[in-house]
């Protein structure tokens, strides 16, 4: 029996101690519906999903899942839903097959059906070949797909997914959603949280949360209609000066440069942005996307873009600061980085794209001097990374995937610590920290341990810590992972400002739309740098005139696969 409503929540809320992390959430999810939950970090998305899975008791309100009350009949709910938590929730020491068998056993999947279901799911996830590999040895994308398989093995009528595509490369994300589409076609309802707006756009209905409160809810079309008139497209010959003007306009929440001469901007109110006009060839309202909806919806929480950040444009795109020649790194028989050569000029932003396991992180670690290359050499500002690491270290800043900060120290203490560790002279302490704080947009920092701060704040703090010694080169490894669109935009503004100061920046990301913020893109696959160049150049290379970053990305990968097949 399938009840009319898979989920019925009414006035749902949860407090920890005295603090409400979620309040007054009401919604319904019908059979076969895909329901997206979006919101900035700390909005209460995870709390909501945990309550739906009946593993967290609500403090307020009422909630029935699959017709059962999550408070009183929690065990019935737990038994029937599929719940995929954030991060990796499988047993890393068990193989793919063992993880699936375990999931099937504890969820009472009839033995007779197990074989068929497993074969089907693994085929869909492209994991058949890896049945005997340990979960911990899979790539991030594969681990997520496997986690999804273990949650589909008992064919639950409702799937609850907490940021399923976090940290997953675009290719794997597509495959993940292919599996989910099949599940949806089979009539399963899906409730999921995400920071990818195109995923929200593809769902039936979306709930936008902020600070634990529902901000908006409706079909993507309805939500987009709500943002109508507050999103503008600007075509211009001088994008840089337009950007400065936009940043100066208090009504502008955010803007993105789409390609060469096109800028998209979101406003606090339904009026065009104030720009002087001579450079503008076109300015018109445009159809909002989910991204715009999110940005507009978060508007009143977003402080104005401070102009102080946008420094004058770089004096000159100077000499090469980072040079890599045929850099190769092997781990045993496995080649993680394969003959990569590149050079990066001062003030240039290089974006590294590629599937999980393509070698992006390893390359960055080599360039930072954390790993010695097996072959080849790399230089930073003329110093060899492997042999002159002392000289290299004072010239680089590094921000790892995990935002490595000391969770038990406050923001100021973290900053002070890294300033001392980098040997910033005592006299310059206050000014350097002040500068880094301003650059990272952290003027209002809390004096509480960093462990309790939101991901977006920690991200900016990690950036501040990485630049406190004014490095010439900055390495950012997935700096925007799991961060909401508006915070990501702000982060990229900071990066642009640093580049304008003449800092060379190497950055990896899974958000392909962010590629437009980079001067050049490097596409990596299987350890090799398969293409490098400006987005427009890459497009031309593929013979595309139009097309998104994703198409370019997939195009090059397809071409590479084709080459492989031929040779």
């Amino acid at each position, binding site marked *: 029996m399938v009840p009319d409503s898979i989920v019925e929540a009414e006035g749902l809320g949860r407090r920890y101690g005295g603090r409400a992390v979620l309040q007054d959430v009401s919604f319904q999810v019908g059979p076969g519906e895909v329901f997206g939950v979006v919101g900035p970090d700390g909005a209460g998305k995870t709390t909501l999903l945990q309550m739906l899975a009946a593993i967290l008791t609500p403090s307020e309100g009422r909630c029935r899942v699959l017709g059962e009350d999550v408070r009183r009949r929690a065990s019935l709910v737990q038994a029937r839903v599929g719940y995929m938590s954030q991060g990796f929730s499988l047993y890393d020491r068990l193989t793919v097959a063992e993880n699936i068998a375990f999931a099937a056993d504890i969820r009472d999947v009839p033995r007779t059906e197990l074989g068929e279901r497993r074969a089907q799911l693994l085929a869909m996830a492209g994991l058949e070949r890896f049945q005997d590999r340990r979960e911990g040895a899979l790539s991030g994308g594969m681990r997520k797909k496997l986690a999804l398989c273990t949650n589909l093995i008992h064919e639950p009528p409702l799937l609850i997914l907490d940021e399923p595509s976090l940290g997953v490369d675009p290719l794997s994300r597509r495959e993940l959603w292919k599996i989910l589409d099949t599940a949806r076609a089979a009539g399963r309802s899906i409730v999921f949280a995400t920071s990818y707006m195109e995923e929200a756009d593809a769902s039936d209905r979306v709930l936008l949360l902020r600070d634990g409160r529902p901000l908006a809810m409706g079909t993507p079309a309805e939500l987009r209609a709500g943002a109508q008139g507050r999103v503008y497209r600007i075509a211009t010959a001088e994008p840089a000066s337009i950007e400065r003007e936009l940043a100066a306009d208090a009504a502008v929440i955010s803007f993105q440069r789409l390609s060469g001469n096109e800028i998209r901007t979101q406003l606090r109110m339904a009026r065009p942005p104030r720009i002087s006009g001579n450079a503008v060839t076109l300015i018109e309202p445009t159809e909002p996307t989910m991204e715009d909806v999110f940005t507009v919806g978060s508007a009143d929480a977003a402080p104005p873009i401070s102009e102080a950040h946008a420094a004058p444009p770089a004096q000159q795109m100077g000499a090469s600061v980072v040079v890599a020649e045929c850099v190769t790194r092997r781990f045993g028989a496995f080649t993680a980085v394969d003959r990569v050569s590149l050079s990066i000029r001062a003030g240039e932003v290089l974006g590294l794209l590629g599937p999980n396991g393509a070698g992006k992180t390893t390359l960055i670690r080599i360039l930072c001097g954390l790993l010695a290359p097996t072959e080849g050499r790399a230089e930073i500002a003329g110093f060899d990374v492997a042999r002159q690491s002392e000289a290299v270290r004072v010239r680089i800043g590094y921000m790892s995937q995990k935002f490595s900060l000391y969770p038990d120290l406050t923001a100021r203490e973290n900053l002070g610590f*890294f300033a001392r560790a980098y*040997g910033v002279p005592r006299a310059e302490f206050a000014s350097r920290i002040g500068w880094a704080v301003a650059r990272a947009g952290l003027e209002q920092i809390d004096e509480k341990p960093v462990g309790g701060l939101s991901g977006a704040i920690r991200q900016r703090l990690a950036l501040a810590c990485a630049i406190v010694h004014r490095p010439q080169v900055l390495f950012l490894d997935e700096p925007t992972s799991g961060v909401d669109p508006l915070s990501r935009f702000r982060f990229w503004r900071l990066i642009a400002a640093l580049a304008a100061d003449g800092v060379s920046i190497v950055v990896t990301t899974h958000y392909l739309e962010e590629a437009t913020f980079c001067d050049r893109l490097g596409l990596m696959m299987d350890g090799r740098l398969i293409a490098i160049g400006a987005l427009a150049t890459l497009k031309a290379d593929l013979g595309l005139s139009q097309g998104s970053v994703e198409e370019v990305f997939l195009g090059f990968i397809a071409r590479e696969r084709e080459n492989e097949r031929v040779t």
Partner: protein
Amino acid sequence: MWGRIAGLTVKEFRQVLRDPIILFLIVYLYSAELVICTLALGFDVQNLKLGVIDHDRTEASRSVIQALTGGDNFVLAAQLADMRQVEDHLQRGALDAVVEIPPGFARRIAAGRRVDLGVVVDGSNGNIAARARAYVIEILARFAQERTAVQIHTHGVQPVLRVWYNPDLTNTRFMALTMLAEAGLMLGVVLPAAAIVREKQGGTIEQLRVTPVRAHELFLAKITPTIVICSGAVFPVLFILTLLGIPVQGGIGTLLALTVVFLMSAVSIGVFVATITNTLQQAMLVSFFGLFPLLFLSGTIAPIESMPGWLQAASQASPLLHYVDIVSGLFLKGAGIGELWSHAAALIAISAAMFAGGWFLFKRQW
């Protein structure tokens, strides 16, 4: 360089003082555990339960029983009829030892002839059995000498027994000092190990590696808070001991200096542990169970001289052994650096070896 070290050290202090589990461990080891063990385990084995089978029932046999049970060593727990009952009492643990006085005991000693007394000791607790045996032998020897002296009006050897340094033969002072030493060892190993491994686990070590910080600077910063905290803890401990009525006298300055030397050897082990482990869990397991051998070879649980020779040699590698000798020398015997320098030298040798090993291994990961 000094600026970097200062920065690193300040950060380490902050982290230690903000970690509730670490703080709890420090306070627990230096107060609760110390007090519990001192109060509970400091007592000498006394009042052993003695069973008596008196086949003689004369004034002489009664005076033997009186000699045995008159002191603190034995209490008369049961009068048994014959040996057949002994088994049952010992099985149940109701008696620790039994003395059987044969018929004709009084007659034989009056005639100056030799008498054999049957003594049965429960060997299932070796600790008690060894004492019981020694006490019985001593008491009967004294009894015999006194009897003989009266009979033949001659004096024999007049033993003058002095127990130095701990006249009442209680374990309390020694136990308290041992616990002070053990707490120092445990924290000295665990704190730096945890502090270093935590950086590995949290990924911050990567962040440090891209700074100009050198491996030895990190080492120095990691061990400083432990040494400061644990040597500072000596003062509250001395105060607690005074409250417990345990007098402590001796040179505080020497104690502090030698404590720092001891802590250096403990932290050197901690640093070594951190270099061979990758997660906090591994580091803790290795430290706790690595501490056991050191504890055992320190002579605090069982006397070193009864161990096999190879273990006695190995015991020289236990910092605890040297430090226990140092504190008992300082507090119980009134010794000074003149007597204790060899222990200090051994501690320095241990630190040097462990630091060198740790540094060598860590350098390869840095």
